[in-house]
């Protein structure tokens, strides 16, 4: 399999501090590629660089062979990259199903003229979008709450709602930033199952997660980040045994004992 996402030599500095420095990795379609590291290692910053939220100082990002470095998030969305957020970014004033419907924005007609006129084609498209959104809600177990305002849902539900919204875009590659953070064991198992299922459908997954049990059990490959740099990359078994990884985590708590984080 060829690489779907290729990140090479990417880096950014904030006020002289190199938050992410010379990070290189690649992720394939249908694979679960995890990024772990102590708090402040630069995992979320790396996601922000790849997804166009921040602009990298150097390095390149390729999506399916094409250079996409410096592109805005909405341009990346159109090219098949989607993501979730560590701190929820939910449309709280909209209903659950509308949140997911928005996820289909890149596949919808964008002519404001037709929207103002309320043409039958727009109504048809709305029905189609809603049906697809409902199917996704079904998949993440939220169908019964489709018309509830998102602001009234629990934290664990919102985490799944974000995944459903990201999936609605039908991405080729999906970046998940701590999808199980703050969830109870049942919810975590649910999300675990969901991620594996998504990867099986052929979508490449890049996962940042603190729950080591989850990471080690579902990942194909793992990248370890410390102080913004790549410490090592390998299959879960090798990573868990590597003395450097254990040492890196000793400063911030052992992998797997991670309970609380900012």
């Amino acid at each position, binding site marked *: 399999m060829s690489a779907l996402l290729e990140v090479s030599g990417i880096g950014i500095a904030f006020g002289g501090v190199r938050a992410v420095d010379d990070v290189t990795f690649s992720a394939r379609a249908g694979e679960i590629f995890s990024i772990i590291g102590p708090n402040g290692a630069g995992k*979320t910053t790396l996601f*922000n660089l790849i997804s166009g*939220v921040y602009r990298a100082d150097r390095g390149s990002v390729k999506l399916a062979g094409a250079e996409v470095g410096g592109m805005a998030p909405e341009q990346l969305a159109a090219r098949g990259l989607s993501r979730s*957020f*560590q*701190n929820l*970014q939910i449309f709280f004033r909209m209903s659950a199903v509308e949140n997911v419907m928005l996820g289909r924005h890149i596949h919808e007609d964008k002519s404001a003229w037709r929207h103002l006129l309320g043409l039958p084609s727009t109504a048809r498209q709305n029905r189609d979008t809603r049906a697809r959104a409902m199917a996704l809600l079904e998949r993440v177990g939220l169908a019964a709450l489709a018309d509830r305002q998102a602001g009234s849902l629990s934290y664990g539900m919102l985490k799944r709602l974000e995944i459903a919204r990201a999936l609605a875009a039908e991405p080729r590659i999906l970046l998940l930033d701590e999808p199980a953070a703050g969830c109870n064991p049942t919810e975590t198992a649910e999300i675990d199952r969901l991620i594996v299922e998504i990867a099986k459908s052929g979508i490449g997954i890049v996962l940042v997660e603190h729950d080591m049990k989850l990471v080690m059990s579902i990942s194909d490959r793992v990248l370890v980040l410390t102080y913004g740099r790549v410490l090592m990359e390998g299959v879960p078994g090798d990573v868990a045994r590597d003395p450097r990884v254990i040492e890196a985590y000793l400063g911030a708590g052992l992998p797997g004992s991670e309970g609380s984080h900012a």
Partner: protein
Amino acid sequence: MLASFLQFSMSGLTVGAIYALVALGFTIIYNASDVVNFAQGEFVMIGGMVSVFALAAGLPLPVAGLVAVIAAMLVGVALHRLAIEPARGASPVVLIIITIGGAFAIRGLAQVLFDKQFHKLPGFSGEAPVNILGASIVPQAFWVIGGAALIVLAVTLFFERTLLGKAVLATAANRFAAKLVGINTGFVTGLSFLLSAAIGALAGILVTPITLTSYDVGTLLALKGFAALVLGGLGSATGAVAGGLILGLCEAFAAGYLTSTYKDAIAFLVMIGVLLVMPNGLFGRAQAERV
């Protein structure tokens, strides 16, 4: 050539000093409570109107000024207690509307208590213009610029040297943390209204011998003060003063060299122009979006 340049500079600094004081009043309240107080211009109006009427009632000018400052401070405290405090936690738009409602009410009250006429105070040091290098400058201009400089100095000393001032700064930096260390943040917010009202009233007293006053002069002053505040970078006292002076100078030079018809438009054109290049104002810091 030099004479007209000097003339325009002085008139720019004079108006600019008033804008700076209005913007400083905005900043003090904004820092303490996140409220953009559109009634700030009404404090200037109160300063002018009350001293005019107190003077007419026979009080000597310094006493009349004192009465005006006290009146403005009372109104400031009342505004805070009756309108801002009960609405704590409301959205910024709601708070803006409340302060505009407050400005309406204060203006309406002034219209009832006083009248709808224009009024003037006598110049503190007479009306005879001083001739400097060919520019003729009314002595009151020196009072305005000097007075504004003194006020800014006093405010700076208050914030840097007194415990109370530091409490206000602490509240501005982090309301929650300030509460934790035992600062009464409600009191601090009230104090900021008191202080801003006094500054506004003093500005009104200083400028009324030059520009006249009436019950409705507050609106345009508040708008320009807001423009100066945002131009300076919202929340920075230095920025507010600099923003005010810059707007005043731009106005005076545009009116002198280009067109006086659009004198009032210059402040807004400059402000919009700067924001388009520097979206956080001249002295504001950009904040990286955290997600």
